[in-house]
């Protein structure tokens, strides 16, 4: 399309004769109400009149509108690409299964981890997809689900049939923990196998494994090579039920260094009789999200409320705690 279709003379004249924007700007509440379409006709005209004259307010309005669009409920991989990648992975996995096992039993836990070379070959597609998706539907790092709450969490078409990650959740994976654990689907239909994926903070696939169902209500798996310590990751598990793959949410977590782990263990042990001590310990270790998660899990009793007040008295221990406390209107 050529510029002549855009009235370049008009654009040029508008640029040359543009007035300085008005000194008074719209209230944010007015822009928000206008964006939500809940202003009366008379007020709407006033707002539109101002928006037509005021570039800064118009920029706030257009940028806000751009980011009001709901986060797509999507995995980091676009469905079509995911289907291709999953297909490739399944074909490859089946080949390996037939080569390594002469008919795997689904009643006995059998897991395999691809060799690093296999992983490298397979992960090329995943990496490409993850990077491609990073430009569009899932641009955020793995900890976005935590930041955005349920908006950014991938929800399967049928949440009941998705596996639920149990551990690690929001918190850290320590070196002696048993690895990744999840609850199998809550429906009566049992899944035959699970695909575990771990991505790093750059959304690059760092580990994956296929685990066959055991018939137990929960599953666990440990990678033979420990993840690097002191880094952030996210993981999810995808269940195959009657040929359909259903994914869990992405769960962010981090790995503790051995020193941090020892310190955390010591603190948790020290305060095991106090309901909030674990939260304080997590916060002090910089695991504020784990602290909040712990707090959210506690019942709102008077005793707990009192203990919560004490917790805020230790706000100097962590800037995030301090920030939250400031938000509680306490001078």
């Amino acid at each position: 399309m050529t510029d002549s279709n855009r009235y370049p003379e008009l654009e040029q004249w508008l640029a040359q004769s543009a007035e300085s924007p008005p000194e008074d700007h719209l209230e944010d509440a007015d822009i928000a109400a206008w964006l939500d379409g809940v202003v009366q006709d008379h007020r709407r005209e006033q707002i539109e009149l101002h928006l037509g004259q005021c570039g800064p307010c118009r920029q706030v309005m257009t940028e806000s509108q751009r980011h009001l669009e709901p986060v797509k409920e999507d995995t980091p991989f676009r469905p079509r690409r995911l289907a291709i990648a999953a297909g490739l992975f399944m074909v490859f996995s089946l080949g390996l299964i037939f080569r390594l096992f002469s008919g795997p039993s689904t009643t006995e836990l059998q897991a395999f981890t691809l060799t690093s070379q296999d992983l490298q070959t397979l992960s090329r597609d995943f990496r490409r997809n993850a990077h491609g998706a990073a430009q569009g539907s899932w641009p955020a790092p793995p900890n976005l689900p935590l930041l955005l709450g349920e908006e950014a969490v991938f929800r399967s078409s049928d949440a009941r049939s998705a596996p639920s990650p149990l551990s690690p959740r929001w918190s850290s994976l320590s070196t002696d923990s048993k690895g990744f654990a999840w609850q199998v689907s809550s429906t009566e239909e049992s899944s035959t196998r699970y695909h575990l994926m771990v991505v790093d903070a750059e959304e690059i696939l760092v580990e994956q494994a296929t685990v066959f169902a055991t018939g137990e209500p929960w599953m666990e798996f440990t990678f033979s090579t420990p993840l690097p310590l002191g880094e952030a990751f996210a993981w999810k598990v995808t269940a195959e039920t009657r040929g359909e793959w259903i994914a869990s949410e992405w769960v962010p977590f981090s790995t503790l260094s051995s020193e941090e782990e020892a310190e955390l263990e010591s603190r948790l042990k020290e305060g095991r009789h106090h309901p909030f001590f674990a939260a304080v310990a997590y916060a002090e270790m910089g695991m504020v999200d784990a602290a909040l998660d712990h707090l959210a899990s506690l019942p709102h009793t008077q005793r707990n409320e009192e203990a919560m007040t004490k917790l805020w008295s230790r706000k100097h221990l962590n800037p995030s705690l301090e920030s939250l406390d400031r938000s509680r209107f306490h001078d």
Partner: protein
Amino acid sequence: MILDKALIERVLDGEEFAGRTFAEECRKLILGLAHGRHHLSRDAAEEIHQTVMVRLLDRQGKALRAWRGEGKFTTYLTVIVTREIIHGGKVSRRPEENLDEARFQASSHNPVKEAELEERGQILRQALQDLKPRDRLLIALRHEDQLPPREIARILGSSSGAIRKALFDATKRLKNRLIALAPELFGPIGNKSGETSSHSPVEDP
């Protein structure tokens, strides 16, 4: 959505649990916008979070009270965060400084041209003021901000086709008004290179 009018009222009443819930929900949304959508660093996003929370709660929650419960609170918060990000220089502002350059290039230190430019500017501003607010906004979005009709349609919650039609009509009304006010200055709009006035000026780039 948990961030509703009832919660805000409880927050303004100083209810502690509501305040905590409000802070947590706002934190998720603000960091999600700043870090997830605007791709600011985690530190910069935290900074925005702090600033916005202070702005909301400062002066007995003046900014919080300014939300009158119309529409969604999340929209209001999004606008506040966006303004903070733009004003904090995290997102590039529109190139207002280029206006002086455009004026300078147009005049080229020629007094006659400068006078003509001034006159044309006055008439253009007059013609724009004569337009209906919605037409003025359409013209600004299309010809000043140079947004494609598809984008304008998304902003105004309309279809692309309806916006093309509205833009065409608004531009035509502006053109007619300009020609009526100063035909010698604005006669050539849309008529160069054999273009006809029926040619739509609002196609996608």
